[in-house]
């Protein structure tokens, strides 16, 4: 099994190399803009590093945008998880509802996000509209993964649990949910990363987190803002992906040990 996933040591080495690269880059960039004033346009035709490193309001702005981006990601994923759990429970209890439920979720998924934001802002504040719309996009992935996770619990394990006299509830809580966890966590990971990308589009309704930089940069033809917004959005996605992966590893020690063998 060790061929399928990189060993622990390789994984840590890769993470370390990544962090080191970022640190070296930042040191190099700061070095490059030393002595330049905020409004010179000299460092680079694409990214003006002095805007990032010399402009006094930049750190403050970036912090606010990060918080907004995180809020617009975490809230929809959390709400989506709660809603999807309920929908998955219905789908698992009444099998025939699974197809219509995923059909509806799939339909929501295909609605163009810009249109959805626009329509929802008629009735809701921009922030509420963004959360509702982004939540609807997580449903398809989450419902499908929760159902698949529970379905994936081996028949023999259920049979053994029943044969030993476990009640249905106890079986669900102590056997089925823990064993479904890896698949559910994978769903949460995909939903989170997708949402981070979609948050940028809420820039169209004056929100957007890092997407705000992208929209603003586009409108003012200032490419630095577009680049910074895009890069930070990607970095945030990678960071959250890693974070959720490590949470999953902590929660599923049995899977890790099996790989370690």
């Amino acid at each position, binding site marked *: 099994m060790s061929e399928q996933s990189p060993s622990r040591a390789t994984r840590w080495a890769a993470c370390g190399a990544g962090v080191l690269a970022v640190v070296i880059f930042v040191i190099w960039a700061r070095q490059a803009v030393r002595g330049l004033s905020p409004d010179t346009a000299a460092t680079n035709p694409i990214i003006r590093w002095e805007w990032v490193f010399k402009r006094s309001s930049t750190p403050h702005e970036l912090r606010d945008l990060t918080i907004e981006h995180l809020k617009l990601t975490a809230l929809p994923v959390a709400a989506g998880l709660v809603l999807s759990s309920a929908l998955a429970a219905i789908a698992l209890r009444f099998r025939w509802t699974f197809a219509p439920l995923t059909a509806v979720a799939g339909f929501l998924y295909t609605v163009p996000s810009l249109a959805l934001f626009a329509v929802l802002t008629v009735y809701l504040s921009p922030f509420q509209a963004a959360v509702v719309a982004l939540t609807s996009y997580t449903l398809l992935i989450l419902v499908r993964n929760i159902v698949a996770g529970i379905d994936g619990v*081996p*028949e*023999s*394990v*259920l*049979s*053994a*649990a*029943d*044969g*030993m*006299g*476990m*009640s249905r509830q*106890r079986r669900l809580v102590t*056997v089925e949910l*823990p*064993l479904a966890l890896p698949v559910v966590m994978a769903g949460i990971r995909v939903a989170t990363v997708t949402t981070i990308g979609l948050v940028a589009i809420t820039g169209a309704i004056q929100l957007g987190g890092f997407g705000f930089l992208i929209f603003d940069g586009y409108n003012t033809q200032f490419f630095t803002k577009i680049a910074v917004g895009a890069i930070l959005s990607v970095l945030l996605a990678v960071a959250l992906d890693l974070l959720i992966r490590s949470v999953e590893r902590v929660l*599923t*020690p*049995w899977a890790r*040990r*099996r790989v370690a*063998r």
Partner: protein
Amino acid sequence: MGQQRDEQSSDGAVAIQLRAVTKTFPGASTAAVSPLDLDVPRGEIVVLIGPSGCGKTTTLRMINRLIEPTGGTITVEGVDVRQQSPTELRRGIGYVIQQIGLFPHRTIAQNIATVPKLLGWDKAKVSARVDELVDLVGLDRDMLGRYPGELSGGQQQRVGVGRALAADPPVLLMDEPFGAVDPIVRGRLQGELLALQQRVRKTIVLVTHDIDEAIRVGDRVALLNVGGVLEQFGPPDALLARPANAFVEQFLGSERSLKRLALSQVRSLPHERGPVVDASATVDEARKVADEVGGGWVGVVDAERFLGWVHGERLEDSRPLADQLLETPAVQLAPDATLREALEAILTSRSAVAVIADEGRFGGVVSLEQIRRGLIA
């Protein structure tokens, strides 16, 4: 139904009783189990065997109500299984399945502790019991902290048996418990089950499709035909010696006599001292014995100990018998050796008989003729 009871159990106590039990699955035109009567004596291993579709697994699963019977009654230790809730009933019955079904996310210790925890035992009692069971099924205690994924198939099956025995249930149901392991491990696990049974004396109902397994581990074998028809029920030797009908005969296969060899012990044969003389006998006396048996081989026994073989035609008058022993080794068998082992010993010995030795003491001989007569009897 060609049901026959060859032997009443020693104490006559019935642990599990099936009376006119039937099962027809919804939508099925024929019954999976037609009215079935079966008594499982306490402390015995009863094997349910038969071709696919004979309802053996269905019958087993009706005992702990994983499948509800359509009709009839099942009692376990005198209590109708329907008097308890299914979960309560199942906590009092050990259950082992072919795929083992260990919980992959629980350690070995947690797996074994499943039923005691369901029953609400306190921590100290559970952990003492887990240690006890790990020793009982022959696993190392340092495995307790591992996950099932880290164990071999044979080890997992041992954990499965330990988990089923955790709350010390009087009854154990085993559904093809050794079906998923390779033949070598299967043989070893069968041996371990028999050794374990010597110690715990549970009432065990075991389902298998392997006739050799049924013969080896079963105190009694219930042979079912398609639709849950009981064709014959009795000790394995009785089935092999006197198949009730053509179906039974065909199912048991063409080597019934050979299979029986593995079931009887040498001690079950009538005692025969064989062509032996005392070491103090004269050479003439030995020659006389040799002539009587025709083969020429005569054993020399000294104060209950078998010394070796002499051959009638090669005896010299001048020397005592004990000095003329041939180098041909005497094949010796313990009284609890099987007839199969005796046959092997006879086939490989030049004297054509095997010597029985009970911890060194001479206990007679076994010949091919004796085995043949033993099988016919």
